[in-house]
């Protein structure tokens, strides 16, 4: 079954949706969209690092994404970060990554595979990495769910009831870095943040509790992955952008019917 490249692509897409959707809910709730942008754009720098040092690409991306996420996390905590600073970091990381990749000596690197993903080239070993990463992120989310939600509401409220909001922030930072590392092969550095934010935002009108929103986001993410894959076969379009296009269509639909849902 795993010999079929289409099946591997489908499973890879589902794996990424499983990790990205619940994490994406926190990105939306905590208004961390730019945080996701900056971290995923930094992935390209990780690719350059991996190519230059013969490290596996996943390893390089994980390392750089983690560093970027920790830097932003620290800056945000000290309140020096503004919207503008996060924007600067997000785009600088992308530009720096593109420059760094072009400086790698030897064969020309196929940049578009890293920018937009190359889901049809997912090998069995990639699939294993994606699902291990997804299980790790999903497990972290389930394990820390209550504490993460409390810290998201209000850090002082969390401390007063014995929580550690800084530790939960670190959990999210780690989960984000892992998600970026496993998603780069599937949707590419440019569109990872889209897989975080769009399914979560599309799920909002259907939910009255955080749990329902996270489950809806997983379903929408999974549907987008499979739909985008099918669309890209049918219309011969690039797969990563096709997946995000389907997610965007679901969001548009959900936004259109949300006034009807609110009237209940």
């Amino acid at each position, binding site marked *: 079954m795993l010999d079929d490249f289409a099946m591997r692509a489908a499973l890879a897409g589902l794996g990424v949706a499983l990790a990205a959707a619940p994490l994406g809910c926190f990105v*939306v*709730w*905590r*208004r961390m969209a730019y945080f996701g942008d900056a971290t995923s754009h930094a992935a390209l720098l990780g690719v350059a690092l991996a190519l230059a040092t013969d490290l596996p690409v996943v390893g390089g991306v994980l390392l750089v994404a983690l560093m970027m996420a920790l830097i932003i996390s620290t800056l945000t905590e000290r*309140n020096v970060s503004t919207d503008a600073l996060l924007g600067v970091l997000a785009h600088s990381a992308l530009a720096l990554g593109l420059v760094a990749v072009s400086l790698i000596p030897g064969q020309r690197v196929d940049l578009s595979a890293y920018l937009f993903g190359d889901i049809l080239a997912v090998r069995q070993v990639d699939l294993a990495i994606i699902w291990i990463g997804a299980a790790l992120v999903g497990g972290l989310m389930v394990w820390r769910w*209550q*504490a993460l*939600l*409390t810290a*998201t*509401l*209000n*850090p*002082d*409220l*969390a*401390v*007063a*009831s*014995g*929580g550690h909001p800084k530790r939960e922030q670190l959990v999210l930072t780690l989960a984000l870095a892992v998600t970026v590392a496993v998603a780069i092969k599937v949707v590419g550095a440019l569109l990872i943040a889209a897989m975080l934010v769009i399914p*979560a*935002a599309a799920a*909002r009108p259907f*939910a*009255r*509790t*955080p749990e*329902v*929103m996270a489950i809806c986001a997983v379903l929408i993410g999974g549907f987008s992955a499979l739909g985008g894959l099918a669309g890209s076969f049918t219309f011969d379009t690039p797969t990563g952008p096709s997946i995000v296009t389907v997610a965007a269509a679901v969001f548009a639909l959900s936004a259109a019917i949300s006034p009807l849902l609110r009237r209940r």
Partner: protein
Amino acid sequence: MTLIETKGLSLRYGGATVLRDVNFSLSQGEIVTIVGPNGSGKSSLLRALIGALKPASGTVIRKPGLKIGYVPQKLQIDGTLPLTVRRFLSLPVRQTQTVTTAALTQAGVPELAQRQMTDLSGGQFQRVLLARALLGSPDVLILDEATQGLDQPGAAAFYRQIEEVRQRTGVAILMVSHDLHVVMAASDRVLCLNGHVCCEGTPEVVADAPEYRALFGSGTQGALALYRHHHTHDHDHGHHHECGEDHNAG
């Protein structure tokens, strides 16, 4: 029995010392109110007491196993976060329906369980926060301007609710408030802050203290100090400190 105690506590926030040399203690069943102008360190003191702000110097001692019910000054829930009142009460510890219903009833709003937090009015929201703070039978309730945004009848009703909760459960209450009339009527002890402890004692003592008058009396042409018309000159339970940092008066 002492629940929380500070010794020589100083706090820094954003690079500046906001509060220095605070010796304070809260005993079982007491209602203590903190008053003071904006920026006088009231919220910082509460945050230090719950453990959210580390002392720059001095210590905060909490009774081992102390359970705190905290109502923050501001709780903005992002519109993207779907959250019913019942679900909110189950954070971070999951609660049974019986328990959440009991807490909402205690706070006077049993009918709100299924509502979305973002749909509540200001008064309803504060009462839900109170209900959450009451979960798990806390030893002390810490309220940071809990009546902010409520109109006068709403604030008065809220304080009546708190008083009722104390009578029923014997919980100690520490609150920051600007509603001076109510504060003076309902508190056992008042702590007046202005970067340090200006004065403290029973409401009558504090109302009479020149430091307090300087902050609230003359600065507002006496409007906020009207309640003390029938004060007694009983200074036995109070301590006066020199109020050197009187920058907000006038």
